[in-house]
């Protein structure tokens, strides 16, 4: 450990050395004086004889520098000093890189979480899920699953699971939970040990309803049982059936479907699964099956094995089975169903992020070139004083790497914050979706690597400039090289960049305007002043014959609350979920094959007061009454589009009939206005409303219209419904909440376009800035002469920035045109997105102008403030 004292002593050695050298020259001077020289001559002679003091000192110092580390440290300090002297440049460079690295870190982290990271179970590399050959679907019936599990010779074991919603009554507030129904061997086959208590095993299942057990997820145990270990052995009610809590699953295990975190696990042979679901071979309700391959078995062998079982099953049960062939897929994202589009999307994003980084590097490269040009005299001077080119380049690269590390650090910090927020975010409160994209070591590594590589990349741009610096020429004549007049590759890149930026700015403005407008569009129902209360009487154990009476009582109870104007009930809502659809036929059609159907409209079962509560206008005819029940003729209210398609016009539709699949004739008694049912961007669709008593449903939404404060009203509704049945889980939300799912796509598109637009703008700014700064630096002398000769400010600016402004204009116009074209595509995603909007066009022009102004401001100031006197004196 010799070097430790060396470091501390080195400073003293330097001082000693300087003193020693001073004394040496002094002694020599005296010697020469005594030989009869004049004082001035003696001093000069002594110095000449000694040689270059600075270099001697430097070389001596190098001896003591601890390895190269100290010299790197010296370089770093020097670079930091240099960077501090030009804060504008430093900030622009760091921010540019921070954005690019941040974007890459976020995209890579998401890709890492979606695609690269395996399921959180032991030995994930041998875990495969089954998928039907030629389909992107992996559902099986329970008997098929059992046959596949028991007959195959390729898998260690096969597990199966399905996800359902159920009502949990744990003695306090009844709540709706997400349950993973899993085969008994689930935990054992996946190799999972309980965090607490025990898990269920294959041996716990003895046929239908034999295993009323619950294994909680760690998160649910913590959130709802406060991490109480005494929870093991407790009995709770799930859809009114008693279940025993066996234990808690491992801490990091969130089920076997990525991002969809269930609350707990129950065996498939529990009371929640109907007995005939366990035996019906045609009912494919098991969501996914998966297992570890046996050691030495390849996926191809396993597929062959499964296919032979499949063909046996096909032969044995020709009535129930379709084609039974299989493929193996990675289980994380439900095989190819989600996996394929997600992979394609991520690849696209990664490419885009890579391009952003590349553009950032190009911009930083031109910034660095401008800087090197500014410093060409300094570089030449240093070369003339004996500095090696290697040393100067090392200094430049140190600056580049410092900037890249700072940019990488800032970018990574920002992206980590963003990713944390994304991980905590639950986009849809109704579903247990957690996008766990927290960055891991891999992400940090990639970010740092990208930062370093890009630092070396843009740091390399001015290398040729430095290598070709001829110190004598530069010192003699100043930088004499001139800007080329031809269009360089860098110019072209800049134009493309600006064009892309303008496209993004245009599209994001179009999207924002469209989104803002779509929130106030006519949906065919009202959104304001309406609360929804979702219930599933099945969760509270109601038998079908008791459901209608209970629903009527619920409507009456809520309608009696003060401030409530009207209450409707529906099994599903337009732009919500829950509604089914049905084929409809003309009344005179006798062959009721699907191909003869006129339409397949969504069907909503509603209570008499629904239209009033929902704010859907009844154009003609009548609404339903409670007399439209099982004993009276089947009736329907249809929308105008339905009437137009089936009967030619709305006016003639009242009193006419249509048929459904089972041949039943239904009479149209009313016409409702058209609306949006499935998506915001759809064309007018036919829709049908049926009386709830004629087509009943367990699972319904109360539609409550009231101008009372929603929070107070929600509390009142909750307590009114609890008085009716304390064990009934209720979800109360505003009318626009279910629409969040539909708005998710447009919102995400708008946000990502906005973010990309912002990045594009940042990059364009640094790009133009770099080019303008370079051009001004190169022509400083020329500008000085022009000013000295009496050029006006306008002429100076034109000379200095004309090229940059021209590029900006060309790029912007190209981008605006492309953006208008691209917005046509956008109209498929974002409702009411149109580029033919003066506000949008004006906004884009203004944005690009602003961008140009910001980018050229500093170079323009510099060009204008050129003092010809100082410049000419310097030369």
């Amino acid at each position, binding site marked *: 450990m010799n070097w430790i004292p060396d470091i501390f002593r080195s400073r003293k050695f330097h001082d000693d050395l300087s003193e020693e050298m001073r004394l040496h020259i002094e002694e020599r001077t005296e010697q020469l004086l005594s030989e009869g020289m004049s004082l001035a001559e003696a001093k000069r002679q002594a110095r000449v*004889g000694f040689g270059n003091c600075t270099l001697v000192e430097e070389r001596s110092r*190098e001896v003591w520098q601890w390895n190269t580390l100290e010299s790197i440290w010296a370089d770093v300090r020097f670079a930091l000093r240099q960077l501090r002297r030009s804060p504008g440049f430093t900030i622009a460079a760091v921010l540019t890189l921070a954005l690019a690295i941040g974007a890459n870190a976020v995209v890579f982290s998401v890709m890492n979480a979606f695609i690269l990271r395996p399921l959180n179970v032991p030995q994930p590399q041998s875990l495969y899920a089954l998928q039907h050959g030629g389909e992107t679907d992996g559902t099986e019936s329970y008997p098929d699953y059992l046959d596949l599990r028991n007959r195959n010779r390729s898998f260690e074991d096969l597990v199966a699971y399905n996800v359902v919603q159920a009502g949990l009554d744990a003695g306090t507030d009844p709540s709706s939970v997400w349950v993973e129904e899993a085969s008994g061997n689930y935990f054992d086959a996946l190799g999972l040990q309980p965090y607490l208590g025990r898990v269920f095993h294959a041996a716990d299942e003895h046929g239908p309803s034999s295993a009323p057990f619950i294994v909680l997820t760690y998160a649910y145990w913590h959130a709802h049982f406060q991490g109480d270990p005494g929870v093991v052995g407790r009995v709770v009610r799930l859809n009114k059936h008693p279940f025993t809590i066996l234990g808690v699953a491992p801490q990091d295990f969130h089920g076997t479907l990525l991002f969809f975190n269930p609350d707990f696990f129950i065996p498939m042979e529990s009371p929640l699964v109907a007995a005939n679901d366990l035996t019906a071979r045609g009912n494919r309700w098991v969501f996914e099956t998966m297992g570890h391959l046996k050691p030495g078995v390849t996926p191809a062998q396993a597929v062959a094995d499964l296919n032979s079982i499949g063909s046996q099953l096909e032969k044995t049960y020709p009535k129930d089975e379709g084609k039974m062939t299989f493929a193996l897929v990675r289980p994380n994202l439900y095989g190819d169903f989600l996996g394929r589009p997600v992979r394609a999307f991520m690849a696209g994003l990664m490419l885009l992020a890579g391009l952003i980084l590349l553009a950032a590097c190009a911009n930083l490269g031109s910034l660095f070139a401008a800087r090197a040009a500014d410093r060409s005299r300094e570089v030449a001077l240093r070369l003339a004083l004996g500095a090696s080119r290697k040393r100067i380049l090392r200094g430049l690269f140190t600056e580049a790497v410092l900037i890249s590390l700072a940019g990488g650090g800032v970018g990574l910090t920002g992206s980590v914050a963003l990713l944390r927020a994304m991980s905590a975010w639950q986009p849809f409160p109704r579903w247990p979706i957690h996008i766990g994209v927290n960055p891991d070591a891999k992400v940090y590594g990639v970010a740092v690597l990208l930062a370093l590589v890009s630092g070396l990349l843009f740091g390399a741009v001015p290398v040729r400039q430095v290598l070709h610096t001829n110190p004598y020429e530069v010192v003699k004549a100043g930088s004499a090289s001139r800007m080329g007049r031809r269009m360089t590759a860098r110019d072209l890149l800049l134009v493309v960049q600006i064009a892309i930026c303008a496209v993004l700015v245009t599209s994001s403005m179009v999207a924002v305007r469209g989104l803002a407008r779509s929130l106030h569009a006519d949906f065919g129902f009202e959104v304001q002043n309406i609360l929804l209360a979702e219930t599933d009487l099945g969760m509270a154990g109601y038998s079908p014959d008791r459901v209608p009476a209970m629903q009527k009582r619920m409507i009456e109870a809520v309608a009696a609350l003060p401030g409530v104007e009207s209450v409707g009930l529906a099994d599903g809502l337009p732009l919500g979920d829950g509604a089914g659809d049905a084929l409809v036929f003309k009344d005179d059609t006798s062959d009721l094959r699907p191909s003869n159907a006129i339409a397949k409209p969504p069907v909503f079962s509603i209570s008499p007061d629904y239209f009033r509560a929902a704010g859907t206008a009844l154009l003609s005819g009548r609404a339903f009454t409670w007399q439209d029940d099982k004993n009276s003729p089947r009736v329907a209210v249809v929308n105008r589009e339905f009437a137009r398609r089936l009967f030619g016009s709305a006016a003639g539709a009242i009193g006419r009939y249509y048929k459904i699949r089972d041949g039943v004739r239904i009479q149209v008694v009313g016409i409702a206005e058209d609306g949006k049912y499935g998506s915001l961007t759809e064309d007018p669709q036919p829709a049908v409303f049926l009386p709830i008593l004629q087509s009943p449903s367990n699972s319904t939404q109360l539609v409550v219209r009231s101008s009372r404060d929603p929070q107070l009203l929600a509390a009142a509704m909750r307590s009114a419904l609890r008085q009716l049945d304390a064990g009934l889980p209720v979800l109360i939300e505003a009318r626009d909440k279910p629409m969040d799912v539909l708005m998710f796509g447009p919102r995400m598109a708008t946000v990502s376009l906005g973010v990309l637009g912002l990045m594009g703008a940042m990059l364009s700014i640094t790009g133009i800035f770099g080019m303008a700064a370079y051009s001004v630096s190169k022509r400083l002398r020329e500008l000085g002469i022009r000013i000295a000769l009496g050029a006006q400010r306008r002429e100076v600016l034109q000379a200095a920035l004309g090229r940059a402004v021209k590029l900006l204009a060309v790029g912007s116009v190209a981008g605006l045109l492309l953006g208008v074209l691209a917005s046509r595509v956008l109209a498929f995603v974002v409702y009411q997105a149109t580029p033919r909007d003066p506000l949008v066009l004006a906004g884009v022009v203004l944005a690009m102008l602003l961008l140009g102004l910001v980018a050229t401001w500093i170079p323009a100031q510099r060009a204008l403030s050129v003092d010809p006197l100082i410049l000419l004196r310097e030369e």
Partner: protein
Amino acid sequence: MTDTISRDLFPGALEMMILESLRRQPAHGYALVQHIQQRSNNLLQVEEGSLYPALQRLLKAKLVKAEWGVSSTNRKVRTYQITASGLHRLEQQISSFERMFEGIALVLSPGKSAAN
């Protein structure tokens, strides 16, 4: 410039001469330069400054040690003294230098060696 030494002498030659001078008697930098130039009959034009990086290398390798003091002429000087390991190194270097010199001499005058 400073590279003169390394260009005109082979690497380590200056260090060797310094060590040899110091073996005779401790000296400060100026005296060392004078000594080397005089001993070589001014054949070796050592640039005075280039002595110092060499001295620093020797110091770092602990082949010499330095001490501030006052010279006989009443000047403040930093006097260098050879250490035991310096002596050892010097002997090694001299012997390897002699071998090398012998080799070079043989190559440069093949006729003589044949005559011997």
